[in-house]
C-alpha cells in the first residue's frame, strides 16, 4: 500500500507543480491506524497523506464545500466515489471547474466494526499480508482474512470503472469479490410482510437520529434539510415514536432515490449499525426492474428515473402484485 500511496503523492505533486490544482483533498492520518480523516494538503504536506485499507471516506461530499473556495482542488476518488462526484456535478452542486478529479485504484476498504466483532480487541496497528489482515493488539496478534473484513459496499464492488474523472492512476490491484448487491433485498422481498415489519422495526428502533447517514451522504446536498425545517411539519430532533423512525428513513432514502450511487457511506457511518443501504438498494432494484437499469452518476446526459417517464410505465398496483404479502 505504501507504494501506491507514494505513487498517488508523486502524481499529486506533479499536478500541483504543473498548476492543475492548488491543493489536494485526501485523507490525513488519525490518532489510531483506523481513523484517518478527510484533509486538505498543500504541496509541502503531501507526505502526510495516507491511503490504505481504512481510508474509506467518500470525499465527494466534501467537494461541495471545497469547490466553493478559491482555486482548484485536486480530489482523490476511488472508483465508487467518482460516481458520487459525477452525480453532484450533474446536479450542479459542485463547481466542477474548481475540481481536478484523480481516480485512484482501490482494493476494497476494511470495516473496523467487523474486525471488532471478530474478536480484534485493543488493536494498535495493522498490516496486510497476502489476503490477510494482521492486527497487533494489546492482547496479541490477530490474523483475519481480508475478505471477512471488507465493508458491505466493497463486497458488492461495482468494479474499476470511474465516472467523470479528469485522469486515473493506473496501478494493478487484486480483484474484489463480486457478490450480488441485491441479494439481501431480494431475501427480504421473499419474506412475509409481518417478517419484514419485524426486521425493520428491529433495525430502525436502534436509530438515535444523529443524522450521520444524511450528513455523510453525497446525494444529501440540500442547504437545509426538510427534517431541519421547522416549517415542514416533520422536523424532529429525536425519535419520539416508531412512526418518526420509519418516516425519517423512508424519506431519507426517497429523497436520494434515483440519485443514490450506492456508495454505502450511510451504512458505514451509522453508529448503531443500521443497514441503511438496504433501503437505498430497494429503490435502486425497483428502478432497475421497472424502468430499466440505471446507475446514478454514470451518464451525465441520462434523465434520472424519477424525473422521467414513459407512457408504458407499469401501474403502481404492479409492484404490489409481486412477492409475498
Amino acid at each position, binding site marked *: 500500500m505504501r507504494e501506491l500511496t507514494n505513487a498517488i503523492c508523486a502524481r499529486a505533486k506533479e499536478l500541483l507543480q504543473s498548476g492543475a490544482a492548488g491543493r489536494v483533498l485526501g485523507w490525513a492520518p488519525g490518532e489510531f491506524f483506523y481513523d484517518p480523516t478527510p484533509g486538505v494538503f498543500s504541496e509541502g504536506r503531501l507526505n502526510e497523506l495516507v491511503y490504505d485499507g481504512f481510508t474509506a471516506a467518500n470525499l465527494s*461530499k466534501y467537494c461541495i464545500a471545497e469547490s466553493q473556495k478559491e482555486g482548484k482542488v485536486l480530489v482523490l476518488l476511488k472508483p465508487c466515489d467518482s460516481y458520487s462526484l459525477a452525480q453532484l456535478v450533474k446536479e450542479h452542486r459542485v463547481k466542477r471547474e474548481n475540481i481536478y478529479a484523480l481516480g485512484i485504484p482501490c482494493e476494497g476498504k476494511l470495516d473496523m466494526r467487523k474486525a471488532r466483532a471478530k474478536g480484534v480487541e485493543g488493536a494498535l496497528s495493522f498490516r496486510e499480508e497476502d489476503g490477510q489482515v494482521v492486527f497487533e493488539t494489546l492482547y496479541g496478534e490477530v490474523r483475519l482474512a481480508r475478505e471477512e473484513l471488507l465493508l458491505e459496499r466493497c463486497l458488492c464492488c461495482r468494479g474499476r470503472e470511474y465516472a467523470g474523472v479528469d485522469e486515473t492512476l493506473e496501478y494493478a490491484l487484486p480483484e474484489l469479490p463480486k457478490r450480488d448487491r441485491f441479494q439481501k433485498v431480494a431475501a427480504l422481498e421473499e419474506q412475509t410482510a409481518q417478517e419484514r415489519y419485524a426486521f425493520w422495526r428491529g433495525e430502525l428502533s*436502534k436509530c438515535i*437520529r*444523529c*443524522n450521520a447517514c444524511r450528513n455523510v451522504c453525497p446525494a444529501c446536498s440540500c442547504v437545509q434539510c426538510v427534517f431541519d425545517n421547522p416549517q415542514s411539519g416533520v422536523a424532529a430532533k429525536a425519535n419520539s415514536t416508531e412512526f418518526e423512525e420509519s418516516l425519517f428513513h423512508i424519506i431519507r432514502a426517497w429523497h436520494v432515490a434515483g440519485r443514490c450511487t450506492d456508495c454505502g457511506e450511510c451504512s458505514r*457511518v451509522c453508529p448503531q*449499525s443500521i443497514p441503511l443501504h438496504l433501503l437505498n438498494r430497494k429503490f435502486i432494484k425497483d428502478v432497475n426492474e421497472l424502468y430499466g437499469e440505471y446507475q446514478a452518476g454514470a451518464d451525465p446526459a441520462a434523465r434520472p428515473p424519477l424525473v422521467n417517464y414513459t407512457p408504458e410505465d407499469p401501474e403502481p398496483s404492479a409492484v404490489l402484485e409481486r412477492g409475498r404479502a
Partner: protein
Amino acid sequence: MSLYAMDRARLGELYEALGALGRVYLPTRKNGASAFLPYGEEGSEADLSLLLCDKSPKDLFFPQSEELVKFRLTGAEIALQEAARQKEPFVLFGVKACDLQAIEVLDRVFLAEPVDSFYQSRREHATVVALACARPAESCFCTAFGIDPTSPQGPCDAVAWLTESALYLRPCTEKGETIVSCFAGFAPADEKEVAAQQAAARAVLGRLPYGQLDLSRFGEASDELALFDHPAWEELSAHCLGCGSCTFSCPTCQCYDIRDYDTGKGVLRFRCWDSCMYKDFTMMAHGTPRKTQKERFRQRFLHKLVYYPKNNGGLFSCVGCGRCVKKCPANLHMIRVAKALGGEPRAQ
C-alpha cells in the same frame, strides 16, 4: 465493605433474582448493536463481558425523548396533565468506570438547583452496580481523567468484577447490600482473584496509546481565551459533518431541546436530546449564536475540557470512554482534538 462472590454460570439466576428489586437493565446485544436493555427481552442477549455498549447508560436517567406535559383542548378549556415521574425502582447493572463518572457529571447538571425532577426521580429509583474492566480497548483513555477502570468509583451502590469463573461484588450502600441478600448464590470471598484481575488489567492500562493523554492545558486553570482562539480549530473542524453521532453516543452530553407536538387534539410538550453540532442548536428568533461549524465544533470540545471543569471544581465532562473515537464518521474525536490543542500548533 465485604466482598462476595458467585458462580459466573449462575448469572442468569442472579438477573432473575434481581427482578425482585425492580426491572433489571444489563449491557445487551440486540439487532447488531448494544445498549442497556431490560433483561429477558426477546431477541436480546445480555452480556456482561461487553466492554462498552454502543449506547451509554445515560438513557436510563435522561432518555433521548421524554414527555413533560400534555395540554388537552376541549372547547375553550385547556387541561394540563403533567407527565408522571419515575415510580418504579430499577437496577442498572454493569456500568463501567467511565460511564459511572459520566453519571456524576450528569448529576452535577441535573441535580443542581433548579433540580430536574424527571432526572432526579430516575436517579432515586435506581440501584447502580458498577463493573470493573478486565480488558480495556485501545480507544479507552479514562485513565487520563484519573479514572481507575479496575476499581470503579462514583455514584454506585455496588462494584462488581467479572472473572473467568465468578462474579465478585462489593456493596457500598444499603441498596447495594440488598443485591447480596436477594440472591442466595453469593458467598463471602477473598480478594485474591479480584486483585489478580486488577493487576493484569492495570498492566494493559499502562500500554494504552492514550492512557496518559496530556490534558495539562485544559481544566479548571486553563487559559480559556488562548484555547478559544487556538489556530487548530479551523483545520480540526473543517471536515466535521455536523451530525450528532458524537453527542448522542456520548455518556455526558446533556443538552436538550423542548418542543411541542400537535396531536390534533391537544399539544404534547416533550424534550429530546439536542446536539451542539447541529446548526439549529439553540435557535432563537434572531438566529443561532454559533453560525459556523467551527464555532459549534469548538463549543462541544471546550465545554468538555474547559467550561464544565471551570464550573465544577476541575471535573472534566469527558470521561475517556472512547465512543466518539469509534463513532465519528469523520474520525474527529476527543483524542485528536486534545492532542491538537494540547501541544504546539501544527505547522500550516
